């Protein structure tokens, strides 16, 4: 009975794991196919089911015919994501420190309301903002530019940074700030010399969240750019046309999610240190 239960448990974990990895394995095997390997129906094992080719991968890195520019969008995505994340992290961390340590009062608006304002931006459906963003960026000539996207992504990512960092700072003992002030630091010096050097875990989590959400955005990149400033998800989805080169599609999809899989390992390592509390609140 006990063994049977354990077997069922094991089988369930195995089935879910298979479900999780299935699309990755499928993409991996497809990325080595040629047109023949795709159009002859679903095949799985290279050399047995189909003759593998490196054509798709070569195409991505610019050599050979039918090459697809994926590195350009990759760099664009990296630039937009990293700069927006960095700015959001800086502004969000500053605001979060203020909200965690000081009392703000403007009429009926207090700290809780301000914190809620920051975090509640996550509730906003992107489509509601897309239209005014489109018109505004157009007005300032920022459509289809890296700069325009960075501005939009700041609005997307700052709430995440504030959310994580308020939670983090609330767990840092106030006595640390007080001691720094007594030792002659004004609040800015306190933040810079004492609080920030001790905030690495929070900053890492907030940074990871910002990068993942920024990297994964499709909708704003899709509606606010055309051809000049293409981001990675948009480039990949645009391959998803009627005559689909599945092999290139799969290879570029794998390249695009590879950094995220690395990040997943990072996150898991972080969780393993027992720093899970921030995510649970």
């Amino acid at each position, binding site marked *: 009975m006990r063994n049977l239960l354990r077997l069922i448990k094991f089988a*369930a974990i195995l089935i879910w794991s298979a479900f999780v990895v299935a699309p990755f394995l499928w993409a991996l095997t497809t990325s080595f196919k040629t047109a023949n390997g795709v159009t002859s129906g679903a095949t799985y094992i290279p050399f047995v089911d189909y003759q593998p080719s490196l054509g798709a991968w070569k195409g991505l890195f610019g050599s050979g015919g039918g090459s697809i520019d994926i590195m350009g969008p990759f760099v664009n995505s990296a630039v937009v994501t990293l700069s927006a994340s960095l700015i959001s992290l800086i502004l969000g961390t500053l605001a979060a420190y203020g909200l965690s340590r*000081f009392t703000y009062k403007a009429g009926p608006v207090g700290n809780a309301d301000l914190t809620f304002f920051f975090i509640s931006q996550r509730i906003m459906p992107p489509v509601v903002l897309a239209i005014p963003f489109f018109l505004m960026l157009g007005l300032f000539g920022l459509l289809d530019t890296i700069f325009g996207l960075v501005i939009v992504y700041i609005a997307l990512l700052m709430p995440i940074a504030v959310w994580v960092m308020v939670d983090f700072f609330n767990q840092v003992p106030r006595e640390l700030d007080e001691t720094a002030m007594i030792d002659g630091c004004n609040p800015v010096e306190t933040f810079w010399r004492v609080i920030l050097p001790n905030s690495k875990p929070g900053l890492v989590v907030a940074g990871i969240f910002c990068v993942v959400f920024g990297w994964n955005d499709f909708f704003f990149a899709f509606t606010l750019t055309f051809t000049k400033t293409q981001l990675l998800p948009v480039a990949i989805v645009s391959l998803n046309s009627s005559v689909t080169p599945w092999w290139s599609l799969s290879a570029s999809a794998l390249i695009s999610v590879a950094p995220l899989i690395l990040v997943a390992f990072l996150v898991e390592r972080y969780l393993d240190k027992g720093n899970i509390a921030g995510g*649970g609140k």
Partner: protein
Amino acid sequence: MYGLTRYKLLFLLPGLLILLGIILFPLGFTIRVSFSGWDAARPGLDWIGGTNYSRLFADGRFWESLSRLGAIAFTSVILEYLLGFALALLVWRQVRFRRLTRVLFLIPMMTTPVVMAVIWRTIFHESLGPANDLLSLLGMGSIPWLTNSFWATVVVILVDVWQWTPFMFLLLLAGLLSLPREPFLAAAIDGAGPIRTFFNVTFPAMAPISVGALIIRLIEASKIMETVYVITSGGPGTSTETSSYYIFIRGLRDFQIGYAAALSVTYLVIMIVLLTIIAKSLSRYLVKNGA
């Protein structure tokens, strides 16, 4: 404390002002645009009063998209909750392979939704995809995954479940790992079996984190559109069209900017009201149970 005011504002204001600028200004603009007849033919801020709003009330496609969104969001989130809970329970007491399973279960929620949706679309391709191929191996006929309204909805939900069950899993596992040991010892001493222990001890103790996880996921699910765009483009017909996607078509495809703005405002208000009601009633349930 003396001397703080200057510094207080120095910390808060940069972020606050920039966010206010990026969000509130466009939002106000949207509200104004919703009272205009701005479209591709006549771009500009004229004033047509509530015309867009009265048109919207008679727009069956919008209300259908809302109810469809509700059905897809609730089904996905409930499935994700049940599966995530089950997986968390499976891994909870397990020591071996815990890190491996955890990182494995984490990956789908980290990966780009649209990119994975592109892959899923190839998997559910009617003649070339592995989904039907595997079914035929099992001796079953092929299913029109993307060309039948019912199956297309199933695929959209399935992809959402694949992507977001890990989120539930992660939060619920964190909850399980932080549970105190005593109630479980007490239940074991009382001779309660695993099922009774679950319903009497585990589940009530997990109520607060469950409510939190459900609310966060419902908020996110209420925005579903990207995967729909990639997998079905709202089709066949409009059978998988969600509200966000419909607004997107009206606004940035048909360039009926004024009308799309009115749809946006209505959609936002409905979402905020509904999500507030759901959050409030879920929290009330919490208080009643003393959790």
